[in-house]
């Protein structure tokens, strides 16, 4: 007798919600139309093949437990990036400005230090690094972006060079179209660079599916600030992965505020001995926003160190979902990994879900994590009010204090700006409460 089989026929599945996988001819035409060379086309075809094999993410897996991937699907692939974007001039001096149809603009200091900023694959070396941190085979959305990205940028700073000013990448979402941006940031051996990747704009009907690859060479130092301040109604999914060689240092700071539905998948692979990674993040969902964040620290080499500090303060009827995974592989002895996820519930109908996971495959480690969910401590409010502060000012101070540890870890040169963004949002909170 065979193993018992399902007694009932599989339920008739509703129409597959996935967009049709583009044909080779379609991709070739799309790539040619964009003026791409053979290397780019080859990568797109490789990703399309992976896409044809990929299933939609399994909702049973914790990574997708709280967000329906169907809500993040584009209507069709291989559409050119819409050009109707509004450039939102940044508050402090930009070094580089990128948007669909815009030419990157470099400062004199940037040009002097030998940094190259070019459309992805315009620089022939891109092929050497492309797909190492976000391979198309990693999953459905990785393959989707790999096959059909319609805005690409590569940034590269040569060995031993340093750029003090933050490099600013602006990615305004078009109103009502699909944008699939792809960034490749290469920081060569012993070089250092700060990149601010800023997503804004968009609105109802808009979708952004982004992928950012960061490759840090031996002893390199990379600071990456990811700012997500889409307009109401926008939907988006961003993947950011850093790949760290020996003794490389990475700081990833995320401020995630906008959109109706956003899922950000942030992570670093500590692949070289002595690599260090720190991921900090703050999200402040309000009204009916659904903001989902994932962090990954994967240690594949020994004597590596990582830390995560992720904070969510949730207002109104909004929802924050956080999932985090620390994985220490067998061949990574002497590693240390820490993770903290704190959630502050400001609204009576607010909701916070958290799954901080550990997978430890060797014993020579030090590893811990903690997670909390709680409302604002009424005693703290009482204390501040007894010092003469009005209730909303007291609340503001407490939430500001809550996110302070994250702000303190954000890169120099962008901290004030991120602070201003958060302060503006908290001012809104003050009125809402």
């Amino acid at each position, binding site marked *: 007798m065979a193993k018992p089989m399902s007694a009932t026929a599989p339920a008739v599945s509703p129409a597959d919600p996935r967009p049709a996988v583009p044909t080779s001819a379609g991709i070739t035409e799309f790539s040619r139309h964009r003026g791409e060379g053979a290397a780019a086309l080859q990568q797109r075809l490789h990703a399309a093949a992976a896409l044809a094999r990929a299933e939609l993410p399994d909702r049973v897996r914790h990574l997708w437990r709280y967000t329906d991937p169907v809500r993040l699907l584009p209507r069709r692939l291989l559409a050119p990036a819409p050009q109707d974007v509004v450039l939102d001039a940044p508050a402090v001096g930009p070094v580089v400005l990128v948007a669909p149809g815009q030419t990157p603009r470099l400062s004199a200091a940037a040009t002097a230090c030998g940094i190259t900023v070019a459309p992805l694959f315009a620089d022939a070396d891109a092929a050497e690094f492309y797909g190492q941190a976000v391979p198309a085979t990693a999953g459905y959305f990785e393959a989707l972006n790999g096959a059909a990205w319609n805005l690409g940028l590569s940034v590269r700073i040569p060995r031993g060079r340093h750029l003090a000013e933050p490099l600013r990448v602006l990615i305004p979402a078009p109103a009502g179209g699909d944008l699939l941006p792809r960034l490749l940031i290469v920081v060569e051996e012993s070089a250092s660079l700060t990149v601010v990747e800023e997503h804004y704009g968009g609105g109802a009907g808009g979708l952004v599916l982004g992928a950012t690859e960061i490759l840090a060479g031996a002893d390199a130092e990379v600071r990456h600030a990811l700012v997500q301040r889409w307009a109401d109604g926008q939907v988006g999914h961003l993947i950011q992965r850093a790949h760290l060689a020996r003794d490389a240092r990475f700081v990833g700071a995320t401020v995630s505020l906008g959109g109706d539905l956003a899922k950000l998948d942030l992570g670093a692979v500590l692949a070289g001995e002595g690599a260090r990674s720190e991921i900090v993040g703050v999200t402040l969902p309000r009204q009916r926003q659904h903001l989902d964040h994932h962090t990954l620290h994967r240690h594949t080499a020994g004597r590596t160190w990582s830390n995560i500090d992720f904070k969510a303060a949730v207002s109104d009827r909004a929802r924050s979902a956080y999932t985090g995974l620390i994985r220490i592989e067998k061949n990574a002895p002497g590693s240390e990994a820490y993770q903290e996820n704190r959630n502050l519930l400001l609204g009576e109908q607010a909701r916070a879900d958290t799954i901080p996971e550990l997978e430890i495959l060797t014993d020579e480690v030090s590893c811990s994590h903690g*997670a909390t969910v709680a409302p604002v401590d009424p005693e703290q409010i009482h204390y501040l009010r007894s010092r003469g502060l009005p209730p909303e000012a007291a609340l503001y101070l407490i939430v500001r204090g809550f996110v302070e540890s994250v702000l303190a870890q954000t890169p120099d040169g962008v901290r004030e700006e991120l602070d201003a963004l958060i302060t503006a949002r908290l001012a809104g909170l003050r009125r809402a409460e």
Partner: protein
Amino acid sequence: MTTERVRELNLDYEQKYGFADPEAFLHKSPKGLSHETVEMISRFKAEPDWMREFRHRALDTFLAKPLPHWGNQELLGAIDFADIHYYVRSTEESVNDWDDVPENIKRTFTRLGIPAAEQKFLAGVTAQYDSEVVYHSIRKDLEAMGVVFTDMDSGLAKHADVVRRYWASVIPPDDNKFAALNSAVWSGGSFIYVPRGVKVEIPLQAYFRINTQNMGQFERTLIIADEGASVHYIEGCTAPVYTTNSLHAAVVELIALPGARIRYTTIQNWSNNVYNLVTKRAHAHRDAVVEWVDGNLGSKLTMKYPAIYLLGERAHGEVLSIAYAGTGQHQDAGAKMIHAAPNTSSRIISKSISKDAGRAGYRGMIKVQRDCPGCRTSVECDALLIGSAARTDTYPTMEIAENDVRVEHEARVSKLGDEQLFYLQSRGLSADQARLMIVNGFIEPFVRELPMEYAVEMNRLIELEMEGSVG
């Protein structure tokens, strides 16, 4: 590395528990599962129609439900449901005089120390051998107070109303594939009813033994503590060391009515060829307290997440668990707390030891439902790793839909540290003594919660495994 010399826990399992009686059964169902098997079991037990129909419906659910697609897919996928005996009966009936237990079975339980334990400190004992309970007894004074402690089949026959009222009310058959399987082919287990206000001060005990090769044990336990009552139930499990695998898929339902208190202690020490896939869940009503004290030392794969649904105001739940995984073992243990009423509180303490190529972990769920203010919950996970191939996982899930709560989760992973060993050795302890002291300290919060006799046994077991680990 000195720490690699720590010996396997249960190294003497073969001598202590691994013996097998010759298989002497009155009835053994053919291998495989079908409606005929279910019909046969039910008719054999002369069950009421509602139970027979319940079994058949559950079998349909089992057949339709996929295996979980999380957890250890490799081990789960290796289960061959067609290669299992779903019902093995070795005696005519359950008896309540030890002298009446058949000689071969008596020998087994005597070797396991059951009669001695009963005389020493238990208020009642049930012993289950393969599919059926072969012996049970309860102290006369408890019986006089109306306490019911019997095997589940007798419970169904003699207390039909109570059983039918609460049966599958906590764990419906469609909860998961293994609960469905149990619902279809269950046999044996304990039924306990403690009347209003009665406090059973001394633990009741059940001992589960699988003897037959390729056997599935599917006991079903239902414990009801009426308002203000309290009871402590302990179960132990062992099996012979066969070369083929056995399956243990129990369902345990606890109902703590307002103000009641139930503590359920398990020392699971199945041999390393047993799949232990168990569903345990409790309902805690207003002001009730439920505690799961859960020790997982044996089995090949354990998937067990004792759950407490806090259904009434001020109910409190606790899970205290310890898991030990040596090479060839995966302890996928954990706990769930569902806060479904205001001002409920819970605490989970999970400790695991992964040694050599062993894998142990914590998988948990904390849920606070909307409009349940004033809830407090804390989770603490501690993992100890011994050996570079050891693995530990922590998969906690917290879903909080209420803002007036305190939810705390903490986890730590550490190796049995050379520094600690060095420190203790510098104080004059031998390497053995030092390791034993560290491991003892690690499991102490668990051992402290066991009745004295169990605590002594637990400490002795650990001591045995740790001694002589340096040549």
